[in-house]
């Protein structure tokens, strides 16, 4: 009883003795936190509004169908044409290619790191993956341009190596760290009991990983893939240096232009307020909607995971 009363007393006293400024400080700090929280909301709202306001006029001038499904982009020709279908398809194909190349490698690497690898080896590999994530995208582009493009040219006997294929490879390497680390986290979260039960029933280790661990981590691995897509579709710097940047309809060994690189390559010279510049903003709007869509997908995956 006594021991309880003493702290209660001192607590009451403490409240009484607490100097006023401290409470004001609390309020001020809370206000600062609130403002910091609102800053990011404000920026998202501002950027969305700005993109819509500056992106819509060109779409309306050109015509939504002609803009989205036109196959010719000739922004500075005497009779300019603004069809972005080549860019949309290139972005979709390029991202799909990166996923096809990158996900199997990344996924199996994650299984290896999480389940198979001895501690010392997994530490080395994990450090390497983290380093890979830290390399600036322009460096990927530079190495792609100096090493990959000539190699592809020699290997496939092409006149020029800069192509969709090179961009896919560069993107696949760039999304590896995301896919590995997110799927590894998902695999690590699988309860040990599941695997032990499977092993106790006589399954081999490999059977256990692929029949028990991977299905249990399914949604986490799926979100890794979606995050990889998000990273790949938004990348510009690395692929502008290896893709050739000609507004062709995409094919594997053709020089192609992505949604992102279409904006980067022409923005610096587009006349202020010209239809060309407005059309570039419209491409930005289309890209923004694409990425929003992917984020919504990602959130659904993550929610699905939580509900489990």
């Amino acid at each position: 009883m006594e021991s309880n009363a003493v702290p209660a007393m001192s607590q009451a006293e403490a409240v009484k003795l607490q100097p006023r400024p401290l409470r004001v400080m609390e309020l001020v700090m809370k206000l600062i936190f609130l403002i910091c929280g609102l800053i990011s909301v404000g920026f998202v709202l501002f950027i969305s509004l700005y993109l819509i306001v500056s992106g819509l006029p060109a779409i309306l001038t050109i015509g939504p169908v002609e803009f989205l499904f036109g196959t010719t982009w000739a922004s500075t020709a005497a009779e300019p044409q603004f069809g972005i279908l080549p860019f949309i398809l290139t972005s979709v194909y390029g991202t799909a290619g990166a996923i096809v190349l990158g996900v199997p490698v990344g996924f199996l690497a994650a299984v290896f790191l999480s389940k198979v690898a001895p501690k010392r080896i997994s530490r080395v590999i994990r450090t390497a993956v983290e380093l890979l994530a830290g390399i600036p995208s322009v460096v990927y582009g530079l190495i792609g341009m100096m090493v990959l493009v000539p190699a592809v040219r020699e290997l496939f006997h092409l006149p020029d190596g800069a192509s969709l294929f090179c961009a896919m490879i560069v993107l696949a390497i760039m999304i590896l760290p995301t896919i590995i680390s997110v799927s590894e986290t998902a695999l690590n979260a699988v309860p040990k009991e599941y695997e032990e039960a499977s092993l106790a029933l006589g399954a081999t280790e490999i059977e256990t990983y692929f029949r028990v661990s991977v299905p249990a981590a399914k949604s986490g691995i799926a979100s890794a893939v979606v995050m990889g897509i998000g990273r790949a579709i938004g990348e510009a710097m690395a692929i502008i240096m290896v893709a050739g940047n000609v507004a062709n309809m995409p094919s594997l060994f053709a020089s192609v232009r992505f949604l992102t690189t279409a904006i980067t390559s022409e923005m610096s010279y587009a006349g202020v307020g010209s239809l060309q510049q407005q059309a570039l903003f419209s491409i930005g709007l289309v890209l923004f909607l694409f990425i929003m869509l992917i984020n919504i997908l990602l959130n659904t995956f993550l929610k699905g995971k939580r509900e489990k």
Partner: protein
Amino acid sequence: MNMKKILSLALSGMLCLGLLAGCSDSASGVVNTDGSTSMEKVMGVLIESYQENNPGVTVNYNGTGSSAGITAALDGTADIGLASRDLKDSETGVTAITVAKDGIAIIVNPQNPVADLSVEQIAQIFTGEIANWSELGGSEGQIVPIGREAGSGTRDGFESITGTEDACKYQNELTSTGEVIANVASNPNAIGYASLSAVDDTVKAITVDGVEATEETVLDGSYAIQRNFNFIVPEEGELSEAAQSFIDYATSADAAQLITDAGAVPLA
């Protein structure tokens, strides 16, 4: 500590005085220039250093295109029009003052045995009519034309001089001169174009109609792939004092190094 502060204050004060001393007590006002987007770089460096020396004058640059620049000089909406081409016979009432020349080198891989091409052959290469180096006396290999992005001044210059506007079939559209050079340097079948001043040893600048691309051949007019950067001023009526002083500065020997740095060939 305090001594140090006072000393640094005094020093920076002296430096400020030095800045003021550099100012000439000349014109004041606003000079509006309007026209060629290809001249943006040259105008940028000229305006920057001119305004440094003449704090009273503001020079504006508006990139609208050569034809629009000539019109602007004619109807007085700009003090100085900018044109990266010469005046046509139909464009009367204005005179052109050449401030610089823009030489565009045609570059190939150093391994390429082809050393000379005519302007017509170059045009045919870039429009895809000639597709193999063997047609030009080179070794067997599909030609890879490399160009700049739409809107680039170098591309505009190259295409207008060779008459290939909107007809070029590029294999690669890159966003900087450096990238063009790096690509040509790494691909034995590539051909590209770049500002004369940017060409280095990693690529081979070919001769055009037998003329080597150098500052001298650009200046004397014998090298074909070149154009003038012109200031366009009305024939009638006085220029404002500020506009005249800017033109004098741009054509003076002081501006020559700046123009070279901006990738063009100065006349002075």
